[in-house]
């Protein structure tokens, strides 16, 4: 993989608190086809989890936060993983209004990760 094509904006990575070496290492597990497929799958998963968070149902939010924690820590998005952990442990114990407050920074971080993954997807599709 040509890392410069994907991670040329290092300030964006810093702001997201994503470990570039982890994500690029994962994309190097397979060939070009696999990279595109994995990137698309990550986009699908993060979009699915974002929609579930928007639903605001405490049980589902807690479950998705758990999933978000495992996936985000694996791709090097540690800040999102940390926020998701907090949400996972509290989602079913707080009021609906408190839940929406707790969910907000997670959603923002998910959007940022999605934006980064979209950049990756475009870079992979470049001839």
């Amino acid at each position: 993989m040509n890392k410069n094509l994907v991670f040329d904006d290092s300030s964006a990575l810093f702001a997201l608190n994503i470990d570039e070496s982890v994500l690029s290492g994962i994309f190097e597990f397979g060939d070009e086809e696999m990279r595109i497929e994995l990137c698309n799958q990550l986009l699908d998963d993060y979009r699915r989890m974002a929609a579930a968070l928007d639903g605001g149902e405490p049980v589902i939010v807690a479950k998705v936060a758990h999933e978000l924690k495992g996936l985000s820590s694996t791709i090097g998005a540690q800040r999102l993983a940390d926020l998701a952990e907090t949400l996972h442990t509290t989602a079913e114990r707080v009021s609906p209004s408190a839940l929406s407050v707790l969910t907000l920074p997670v959603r923002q971080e998910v959007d940022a990760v999605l934006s980064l993954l979209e950049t990756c997807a475009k870079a992979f599709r470049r001839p």
Partner: protein
Amino acid sequence: MKHESLPSDTILLIEDTPSLQMIYASALKRAGYTVVTCGTAAEAMAEFQRLRAQVVLLDLMLPDRTGLEVMQDFLAMEPQTCITVITANGSINKAVEMMRAGAHEFLVKPFDDQRLLAAVDNARRSVRHRVPVKPEAAEPMVLPPFIGRSRAMQSVYDKIRSVARSMATVFITGESGTGKELCAEAVHKTSSRARGPFIALNCGAIPVDLLESEVFGHLRGSFTGAISDKIGAAAAADGGTLFLDEICEMDLNLQTKLLRFLQTSTITPVGATKPRKVNVRIICATNRNPLEEVRCGNFREDLYYRLHVVPIHMPPLRVRGEDVIEIADKMVAKMAEEEGHVFLGLDPRVRDLFRSLPWPGNVRQLINVLRNVVVLNDGPLVTPDMLPPDLQSEPRTERLNGTAPPTGSGLGDLAGRTLAQIERMVIEDTLQRHGGSVPRAARELDVSASTIYRKLEAWAKLDAG
């Protein structure tokens, strides 16, 4: 269940997050493994029945059932299956529960491809070495080299047998002299690693400065006195078992390194830059209450949960009922043969006395007493007059109360005592104030821990005689 086909080499990967499934599968395929993936328990069950996979990677949280239920079903069908549990950070307790229920190992997210491949490699090696279970054969009452059929020991034997087929870390607790190292050796000998090395290291007997080098090794010139490369205990135990005795005496900095070793299965010798992968099963032991050490800040909590997967508590001799007589009979016969003396057994009065004694030094104390008797006397029976006088004056205990008698007290009056007696009193008093910790007592007294161990051993022999 009956199967037409042979077990498969395919890795069965059960993970419900599609991206993670893809990431893990890609890493495994790149390493040359054939992988079948499933996202639900129902799919997993169907694939397991079809493939009879011997190595399974199983996520703890699945949408339709828990990982624990799935694992129990798999093991009921194929007890030889090696199941590695995948769990999120924060679910360690559940992972520990899975290990106790028969999982081979657990991986905590996030883990890199090297850790994943090491876990799969370990599982595959373990599968190769496993002996098929023979359910029709009844387990013997005693597990050699132990002696004794008490209920307390049956529970220990059962645990050793059940943990033998796993890679799970074993944490042995128990008073001094109860046979913790013997237990560690029994776990090793009954496991699939029995042909590999068994390396024992007493963390309390090695100075803090040298312990890292003893565990992980060092390269020549890495520090003053490192005149040649040294293989550490972890590397020496590659393919076998590393037994870390008195684990609670380990320095906190080294505990961090041990934790990293457990998480990555790699070691970096002192002075080396590149880590090296090793395949080691860890067994550790302490005569302290490890949880209390965690509460006091002497032992890392995360390391405790990593190590405390399968706890085995060695019961004190005073709660082992008739074991004390069985051990004494067998040891007297063995020692008599070794010493060329004739002993046919124990006098009934000695039997009664042995049953009533509290044995604060446990089996080790009993053996020392008997060795002394056999060396200095000739049979045909072990009679009360052959026993050390102080043994007969020890306070009797209610059997099975499980409580050790109070030991030693303050310095008292030093007048009229020999220097050797005063030295002993000072050391024993210091040990008592430090809860029995030899390294801490050694630090306070400004002597090496090995000096204290040597003296304790000499006093034990002296007391026995």
